[in-house]
């Protein structure tokens, strides 16, 4: 159970008697420590042993989906507190679901029929209203026109302007009434224009169409959807036109309703329709109540059924992965499990056998294999989020040193170096503590994307906050306000007037400030040069030590896998190369800090390469420095070919030796088929291509040598981001808060405070922390992990029911 090396795994073969197979798999799913291998990959889904059961499960989940949809329509949510009254087995559930589905479908179809008639009646009512209105208004206008005509008639006779034809017309056919037929109905509004157009074309304009808008939605009887509709009335003459109009109405889905122009009949129909509407309404309501009751009872059990079904489905999927024996009496399973879980698995299988009253016990057998086992770390709630940072880069190779262990401390620390402010740190801490305290509540909830991310990383954020309080105290930053927390400043005024307190005129009057940066530095002219020098050097020290840690981890890896070549021809020259250049620089930095020397370190480092034999002059820090430099330079120069050349040749030699010995050993083992098979596998992947190995080593060497310089420079980002953070916070403090304070106006001050808070939260707490997080991430992934981490493993993915509950299967 340690985090540095992943759990030792083994390939296990389970032989499970067929009668207890399902229960065994179910218990293993509860245990969640066994990763099944698919032994039936070549079979198509319906050829598998349990295909029919999978199909049945699919059918049942379809029914559940139907229920869910219906419940959603009826606004009934499945109750989350599922009542667990005894376990239902799959057969009973299937019967029950089928019954419920049949009932639901019947109720629905009945309701639909009723609804259909109801909608039709409503439409009819609308037609009666609108067309009735139209008829009455038409009658009134016709009557007035008639009267006008009658009034005009006498004067027409005398007038000369009056067209003669009109008179003829009016007099010629005064009595011949053309019997106009009419059709009334409803058509959807967006179709009304094309409808009118087609009518016009089909009848060559020999119809009169009148439409009236229905203001509110109408439920279409056929589709049951809410649509806007128009009531129309079409006047036509002739039977052929009528049949055409009817066809067009059909084509447009316009529902036609009979209407009579007789007023008393209209009234009669109106009352009849209204009565029937009321009747139907009550029937429909009763039906709906019945339905919602049914759905409610389904809703109580829904979650339970859903869970059961998903479990069963996953069990059958696993069962399909197993190899069925020729005798069809037992199933053969293969898979990975951690070594520590062997006894647990045995016990679980035993329990399953007992519960099934099976005669034959399941057999657990450990297999030997050359396959690379999956990587499995036993993480807890705290370490898992750090492990995820590593996994995002690449899953560790089986039993490789896991950088996750160190990340728990180094990651928040490097973050805090860039985010050093104890005020901001406290803000972050409070925010993350809120998440941690309400952990249980948040677990059940579905969170948004970003919130989910923050919640997942709550322990990382907590560590980051704690460390940034710590570094904030060292930097003496609190929203860029200096505090004298650890006693008084070491500096004081030279004379009592002290007019130039922020620039010069300060002398050391007390002992050195005990912890962190002296608050007096804040706001002085030399603040920046002082902090820059401090942080830059600190970044290099941190970087060199982290890179050394990485190289040392590569030593532990090589030792663990007993790879002497890697120790002597990779680890040793690497550590010599790095330390002879940048380890030396770190040493100079420390010596300079301790002695307070004025030496120029740039100069020393540059001239170490350009002219190593020259005299150091005033830049000398300690005796014998020149000699040391020459030795270190030579060591660095030697270590480069050391890294490059020996390893490929040694590998080649090793390969040849192994190859030789293998060709001998094969003869002895011919009798044993298993043994020879494993050798065959062994031989296959040992193809050795020297040029490839050499080029690989060349690349590796160049990368390391160049990387030593560029990675060290890369650690200077610690300084740069820390500088940016403190400067930004001082800008917000000085230019917003202090400036508005100076106005002596309460409103300006409030505005200033609001701006300050927004800027602090938005820019410093969110954006700056995000960028510091990303830079810390990069320093770990690139600068630290490329020294030792292979990350080409694959994750242990056990069959477990707990992971099932998270995802909504439907």
């Amino acid at each position, binding site marked *: 159970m340690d985090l540095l090396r992943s759990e030792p795994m083994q390939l296990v073969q389970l032989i499970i008697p067929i009668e207890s197979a399902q229960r065994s798999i179910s218990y293993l799913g509860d245990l969640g420590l066994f990763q099944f291998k698919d032994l039936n990959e070549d079979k198509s889904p319906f*050829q598998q042993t349990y295909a029919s059961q*999978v199909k049945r499960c699919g059918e049942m989940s379809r029914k559940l989906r139907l229920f869910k949809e219906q419940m959603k329509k009826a606004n009934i949510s499945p109750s989350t507190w599922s009542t667990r009254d005894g376990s239902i087995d799959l057969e009973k559930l299937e019967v029950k679901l089928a019954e419920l589905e049949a009932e639901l479908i019947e109720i629905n179809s009945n309701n639909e029929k009723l609804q259909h008639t109801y909608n039709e009646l409503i439409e009819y009512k609308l037609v009666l209203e609108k067309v009735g209105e139209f008829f009455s208004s038409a009658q009134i206008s016709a009557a007035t026109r008639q009267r006008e005509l009658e009034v005009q008639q006498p004067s027409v006779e005398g007038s000369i302007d009056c067209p003669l034809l009109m008179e003829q017309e009016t007099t010629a056919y005064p009595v011949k009434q053309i019997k106009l037929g009419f059709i009334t109905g409803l058509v959807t509004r967006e179709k009304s224009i094309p409808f009118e157009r087609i009518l016009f074309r089909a009848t060559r304009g020999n119809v009169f169409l009148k439409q009236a808008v229905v203001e509110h939605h109408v439920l279409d009887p056929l589709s049951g959807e809410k649509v806007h509709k128009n009531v129309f009335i079409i006047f036509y003459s002739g039977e052929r036109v009528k049949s055409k109009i009817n066809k067009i109405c*059909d084509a447009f889905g316009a529902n036609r309703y009979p209407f009579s122009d007789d007023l008393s009949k209209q009234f009669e129909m109106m009352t009849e329709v209204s009565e029937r509407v009321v009747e139907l309404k009550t029937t429909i309501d009763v039906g709906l109540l019945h339905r919602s009751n049914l759905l409610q009872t389904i809703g109580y059990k829904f979650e339970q059924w859903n869970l059961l079904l998903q479990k069963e489905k996953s069990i059958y999927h696993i069962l399909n992965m197993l190899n069925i024996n020729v005798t069809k009496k037992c199933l053969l399973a293969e898979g990975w499990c951690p070594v520590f879980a062997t006894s647990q698995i045995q016990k679980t299988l035993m329990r399953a056998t007992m519960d099934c009253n099976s005669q034959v016990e399941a057999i657990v057998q450990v297999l030997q294999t050359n396959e690379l086992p999956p990587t499995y770390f036993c993480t807890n709630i705290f370490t898992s989020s750090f492990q995820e940072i590593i996994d995002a880069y690449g899953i560790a190779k089986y039993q490789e040193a896991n950088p996750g262990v160190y990340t728990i401390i180094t990651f928040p620390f490097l973050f805090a170096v860039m985010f050093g402010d104890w005020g901001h740190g406290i803000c972050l801490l409070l925010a993350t503590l809120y998440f941690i305290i309400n952990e249980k509540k948040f677990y059940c909830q579905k969170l948004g994307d970003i919130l989910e991310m923050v919640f997942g990383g709550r322990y990382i954020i907590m560590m980051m906050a704690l460390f940034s309080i710590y570094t904030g105290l060292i930097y003496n930053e609190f929203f860029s306000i200096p505090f004298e927390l650890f006693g008084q400043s070491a500096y004081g005024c030279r004379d009592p007037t002290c007019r130039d307190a922020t620039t010069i005129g300060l002398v050391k009057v007390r002992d050195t400030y005990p912890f962190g940066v002296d608050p007096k530095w804040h706001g002085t002219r030399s603040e920046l040069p002082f902090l820059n020098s401090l942080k830059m050097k600190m970044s290099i020290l941190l970087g060199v030590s982290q890179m050394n840690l990485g190289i040392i981890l590569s030593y532990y890896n090589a030792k663990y896998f007993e790879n002497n070549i890697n120790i002597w021809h990779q680890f040793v020259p690497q550590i010599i190369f790095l330390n002879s250049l940048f380890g030396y620089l770190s040493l100079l930095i420390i010596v300079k800090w301790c002695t307070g020397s004025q030496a120029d370190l740039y100069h020393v480092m540059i001239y170490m390469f350009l002219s190593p034999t020259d005299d150091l002059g005033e830049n000398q820090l300690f005796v014998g420095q020149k000699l040391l430099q020459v030795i270190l330079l030579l060591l660095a120069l030697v270590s480069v070919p050391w890294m490059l050349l020996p390893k490929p040749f040694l590998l080649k030699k090793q390969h040849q030796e192994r190859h030789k010995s293998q060709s001998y050993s094969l003869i002895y083992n011919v009798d044993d088929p298993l043994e020879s098979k494993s050798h065959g596998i062994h031989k296959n992947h040992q193809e050795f291509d020297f040029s490839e190995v050499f080029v690989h080593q060349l690349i590796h060497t160049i990368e390391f040598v160049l990387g030593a310089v560029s990675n060290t420079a890369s650690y200077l980002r610690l300084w740069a981001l820390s500088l940016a953070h403190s400067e930004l916070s001082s800008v917000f403090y000085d230019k917003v808060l202090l400036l508005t304070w100076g106005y002596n106006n309460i409103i300006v001050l409030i505005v200033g405070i609001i701006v300050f808070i927004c800027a602090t939260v938005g820019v410093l707490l969110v954006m700056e922390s995000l960028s510091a997080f990303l830079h810390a991430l990069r320093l770990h992934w690139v600068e630290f992990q490329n020294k030792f981490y292979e990350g080409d493993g694959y994750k242990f993915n056990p069959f477990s029911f707990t992971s099932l509950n998270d995802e909504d299967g439907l």
Partner: protein
Amino acid sequence: MYGFEAMTFNIHGGYLEAIVRGHRSGLLTTADYNNLCQCETLDDIKMHLSATEYGPYLQNEPSPLHTTTIVEKCTLKLVDDYKHMLCQATEPLSTFLEYITYGHMIDNVVLIVTGTLHERDVQELLEKCHPLGMFDSIATLAVAQNMRELYRLVLVDTPLAPYFSECITSEDLDDMNIEIMRNTLYKAYLEDFYRFCQKLGGATAEIMSDLLAFEADRRAVNITINSIGTELTRDDRRKLYSNFGLFYPYGHEELAVCEDIDQVRAVMEKYPPYQSIFAKLSYGESQMLDKAFYEEEVKRHCLAFEQQFHYAVFFAYMRLREQEIRNLMWISECVAQNQKSRVHDSVVFIF
């Protein structure tokens, strides 16, 4: 000639090309077909399809399945893909995509008109129509009595209107008329589509002219074979051939005078690209010709995906999907009717 499509194509067409290529990789493979051919029941087919892109469309179907449901749902998938692409498309791609559906529109018009001629229920006919070829007033087609009315009432509003100019007659509709109308419309449509593609230029023009020429030639051969022994005169037959393609113009002259299938074959074998089609067929056989044509077509459509920055991939994808749906229909029919020995007769493997 190639312009600088590579430089600017992705501004408008890049997203959709990516989409269509993604859709293409969702097409069923030979392995899928092999599995499907081994299915015992329609439920097996459904189960197999649930692992493919058709999964979401079939998963909510209750268990006694019918072939029509499978085909309907699969077509729905194609229609959804098409609609999504059409929504995202800008000019001229959107016009190009619309052109693809005109063929279905013609088929639908013919289907409805023939159906009403035989006094079938309009609603029933509408269900049989291809959803890609639907337009607003399609149901109104049933009202029309002759071509002129058909045009004046309904089709004048549709994109098919210009194609109608050649077949407006006042004759009453009958089967022969309708078939001639279908072919005339198709001819006009293919020619128009061809011109449009030429106007687009670049790789689109090059590849599409190849695909459309194949289509036109196939139609010419089909018209010839189907009109052998009917009262259609040679001149009329000649008029139905599209005025482009490999057979144009000399092949058309020869096809117009063909009297039996072997003559057609002789004409076609003069054209090297079509020689391979007949290589597998024995003399006098016309049943397998369709399949041979389909196989050739699928091959050409697959090749369209080899080149980038052109619109022909959309056309090819739609056609390949349609072929796939035809395959599925055939397989499920064979499974449903217990004719599994005939499964391979008409299935065209795409990959």
